[in-house]
């Protein structure tokens, strides 16, 4: 207890022990106080996970109204989705968020491709990334025709 001795001078051991003990208690208490103030603040700034359930299926109107060689962005849950009707009349659908840096893609009838304006990423009509910086294909969605109505859903 050399530290205690130096401070209290003539006071022998037990008192110095008490001082050290009180210091430790006070220090631990202060540390606990600081943590219990900072921890809720730290947690507060991180938002809770989205609880909204992912959309199951979205109807986007009659197939006859959808021109050949065109695309349409729809709201799918809280994400955009791209529905494309190819020049041959086939329907394809993908999540519309570019796999590079999350811009929203669009169909380019002049190129016959899916294109992202932000960094020039290109995807073919199977959703495969074919040019530019996107690292992965677009996640595909399922398109069904029910009574002539287009229904977009997550693949099973």
């Amino acid at each position, binding site marked *: 207890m050399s530290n205690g001795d130096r401070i209290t001078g003539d006071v022998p051991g037990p008192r110095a022990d008490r001082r050290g003990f009180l210091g430790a208690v006070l220090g631990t208490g202060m540390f606990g106080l600081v943590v219990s103030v900072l921890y809720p603040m730290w947690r507060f700034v991180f*938002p809770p996970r989205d609880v909204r359930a992912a959309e199951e299926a979205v109807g986007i109107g009659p197939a006859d109204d959808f021109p050949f060689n065109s695309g349409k962005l729809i709201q799918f849950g809280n994400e*955009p989705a791209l529905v494309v009707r190819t020049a041959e009349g086939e329907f394809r659908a993908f999540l519309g968020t570019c796999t590079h840096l999350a811009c929203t893609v*669009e169909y380019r009838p002049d190129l016959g491709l899916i294109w992202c304006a932000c960094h020039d990423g290109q995807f073919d009509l199977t959703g495969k990334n074919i040019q530019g910086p996107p690292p992965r294909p677009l996640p595909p969605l399922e398109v069904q025709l029910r009574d002539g109505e287009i229904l977009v859903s997550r693949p099973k």
Partner: protein
Amino acid sequence: MSLNPLKYVMGWLDERYRLEDLREFARSKSVPMHHTIWYYLGGITLFLFLIQVVTGILLLMYYRPTEAAAYESVQYIISEVPFGWLVRSIHSWSASFLIATAIIHMFSVFFKKTYRKPREFTWITGLVMLGLFMFFGFTGYLLPWNQLSFFATKVGTELVGILPVVGDTFMRMIRGGEHVTGGTLTRMFGFHVAILPALTTILVTIHLLMVQRQGMSEPLTGRPRRAMPFFPNFVLRDIMVWVIVLGLLGTLSLYFPWELGLKADPFGPAPQGIEPEWYFLFMFQVLRVMPAEFLSIDGRVLVFMGFGLLGVAWTLVPWLDRGAARGRPSRVINWAGLVLLVVVIILTIWAKFYHH
């Protein structure tokens, strides 16, 4: 006792607060005499920051930070509020100018080796402030809630998300959720008008205190020192430059009012020809031409890490160039800085003229 009211008030204050010290300080403060524009850039940046504070407070009187009302409230400011168009345009133009003068200030400090001992910490606080100003630009960009800013925010925050381990958590923190939504707008607003101004004010104060404490640096060429009084000579010159800058801002705001664009549509495509503000163009261009994978590393991670390492090296320049303090600055460092500057300028121009 004199009947002159000003003298009376000064006497009253002097009796209580000993103003003689301040007067003595004002009399004796001097700055080295070099008739170059570089000496005014820090002051101009400070002036522009003050303009941002004043116009920002004015905009706060009408701006509403919600997804439903933000765009309309800015529209209201620029079309209905008296001089609203002027206040908003000056805020935007001044932001752009501020980044420009801060960058020029930084490079002039770099090439004149002013960062050398004992001013290492002044250099670092300056760099941190430039970072804060860019974050100011990034957060303020979203506030009008238009198409361009919506996607710029998506890209910028997504970049945080690609960081290993902590990326996803921090991306959600900055966005205020999984996606860029009205929640992100509220959060950016909080950064822009509360957190960043507070941090910047602290740093500006430290930066200026250090300049005051150490005096202005002098060039390495050991010419005999000549000095000019700070009050009133240098201050008057400062003010003259500031008036010119203010005139320039007013002129630009009048003839080139800042555009508002179209309201953001979270489920619409990214607009064609989208690009960030000029000071982010060099990074933007690298992101655009970097392939998905390079040397079997994710291209985005590579870009992020590359700029990160560059930033660290730039911060450590006062220590990498120890010889500068003894009057022998490293030529390698000087050339590296020059190459960096030229590359950034080339990338910026390339981004402007790059069309698909």
